[in-house]
């Protein structure tokens, strides 16, 4: 029973189904962060005292571990605050100077729309089919029309759970000399990621959606691309030489990590991924949760689901005819069932579907069928009160 690994569930009797927003943290993640603060708290990459060396060693080992987890080389992994910062870094340090057009899908999270918009990049949007899937022919003809563009697509939709065929998307993109970034915020905890096998140019992740701490994430980039990129921010620990006339910078990934980094969080990130790696049958569990939730939801009167696709992973969105998602969310919350309601930071797709928002259940490795049963009971109670 994985719930026992998470102290959160020892302190309160809560059904937590908002894992796409953030997950709970296993005991071990909290322990290693505590250990850093109590045993060897020191800054990294500075000076030569033993504590600093130990902190640096642990921080760099975290980089190696995160890189390995997604199939990257250690020097191709930049630590950031999270997926959002990874994408903003990419927009500032690379895309704005090398591309005019960014191609993205209608499903994208605001954090994969606004960083491009803020750099005045022209956006081309891939229209989705009725099941919210990308039709590869539609995609290819758009890419063909805009060769040498930058393409930024989510691996798994945070609003509707759609798992995109990223490998095919990347292959087609490269055929037309495009460069691709995959937003892996929702994918890290749910699917195996191998950036080399995908041949993806950039991949962005957050720790906190995969049982790690908030405030840390990563940007993977092919090394030859990272080398072409300008620093994102200036500050300590990213320089080769500084004078008032001219400064030079370290090689990637250090060039992109100005100032003191989230050291404890990096160490916690590593612990989270090691925990995740040891969980058996994760994808099977994911599938079981989703299939069961879908079955139970479909039996409720007036339920509206927005995709019949099979390639759904991690979360499911719905509404109940005639009822407001916000009312449902509040009434579930009063029964200690935490779900997300609203537009999930994906306003463009909500507008296209004519929705103000949805109720979203998102799953983690500690959720059980019983959680779903209780949620359905809670929903029935809420619906009874609202009708």
């Amino acid at each position, binding site marked *: 029973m994985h719930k026992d690994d998470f102290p959160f569930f020892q302190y309160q009797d809560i059904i937590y189904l908002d894992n796409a927003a953030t997950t709970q943290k296993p005991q071990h993640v909290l322990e290693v962060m505590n250990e850093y603060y109590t045993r060897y708290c020191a800054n990294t990459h500075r000076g030569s005292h033993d504590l600093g060396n130990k902190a640096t060693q642990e921080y760099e080992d975290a980089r190696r571990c995160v890189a390995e987890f997604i199939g990257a080389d250690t020097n191709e992994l930049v630590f950031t605050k999270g997926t959002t910062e990874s994408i903003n870094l990419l927009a500032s340090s690379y895309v704005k100077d090398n591309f005019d057009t960014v191609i993205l899908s209608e499903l994208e999270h605001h954090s994969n729309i606004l960083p491009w918009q803020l750099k005045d990049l022209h956006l081309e949007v891939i229209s989705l089919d009725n099941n919210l899937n990308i039709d590869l022919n539609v995609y290819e003809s758009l890419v063909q029309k805009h060769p040498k563009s930058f393409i930024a697509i989510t691996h798994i939709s945070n609003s509707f759970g759609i798992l995109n065929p990223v490998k095919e998307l990347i292959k087609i993109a490269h055929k037309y000399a495009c460069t691709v970034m995959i937003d892996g915020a929702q994918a890290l905890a749910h699917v195996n990621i191998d950036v080399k096998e995908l041949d993806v140019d950039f991949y962005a992740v957050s720790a906190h959606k995969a049982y790690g701490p908030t405030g840390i994430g990563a940007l993977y980039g092919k090394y030859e691309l990272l080398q072409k990129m300008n620093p994102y921010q200036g500050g300590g620990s990213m320089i080769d030489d500084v004078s008032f006339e001219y400064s030079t910078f370290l090689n990637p990934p250090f060039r992109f990590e100005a100032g003191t980094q989230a050291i404890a969080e990096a160490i916690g990130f590593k612990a989270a991924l090691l925990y995740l790696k040891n969980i058996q049958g994760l994808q099977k569990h994911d599938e079981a949760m989703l299939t069961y939730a879908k079955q139970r939801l479909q039996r409720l009167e007036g339920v509206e689901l927005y995709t019949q696709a099979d390639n759904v992973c991690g979360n499911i969105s719905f509404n109940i005819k005639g009822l*407001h*998602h*916000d*009312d449902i*969310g*509040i*009434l579930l919350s*009063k*029964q200690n069932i935490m779900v997300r*309601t*609203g537009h999930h930071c994906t306003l463009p797709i909500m507008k296209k579907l004519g929705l*103000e*928002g949805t109720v979203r259940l998102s799953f983690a490795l500690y959720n059980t069928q019983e959680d779903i049963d209780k949620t359905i009971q809670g929903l029935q*109670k809420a619906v009874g*009160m*609202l009708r």
Partner: protein
Amino acid sequence: MSIHEEINLIHDELALFDDVMDKYEYIIELGGELLPLDEQYKTSVYKVQGCQSQIWLHPYEKEGKLYFEADGDALIAKGLVDILIRIYSGHTAEEILETDTSQLKSLHLSEIISSGRQNGIASMLKKIYDFAKKVKNAR
């Protein structure tokens, strides 16, 4: 009745419910009874920012007192709006401004007291106080 007395009265009403779900059933009922708002006020000008659901608030002054009328598309939000209208409508700008919003904590309605940027009820409260300030400063 003063604002303070009205808050106490609502506190006593809500305290009758032992079960939190019963309390929210009552709030839903209040939401259903909220008087309809004239369509001319359902525009972006009157819309309360940062709402999980849509709320429109129309404040006005009549014979030195401030009145509020509102509507929304979610029932619980409407019920909470109804409670706020009962508390603040029919009082002078000074009376409103002298009332510390921390008094509302006694109602134990987390949707009213949390100050999240997405919290429409908190934004509505701010609109009520902003209107009171505007009226006071215009004098």
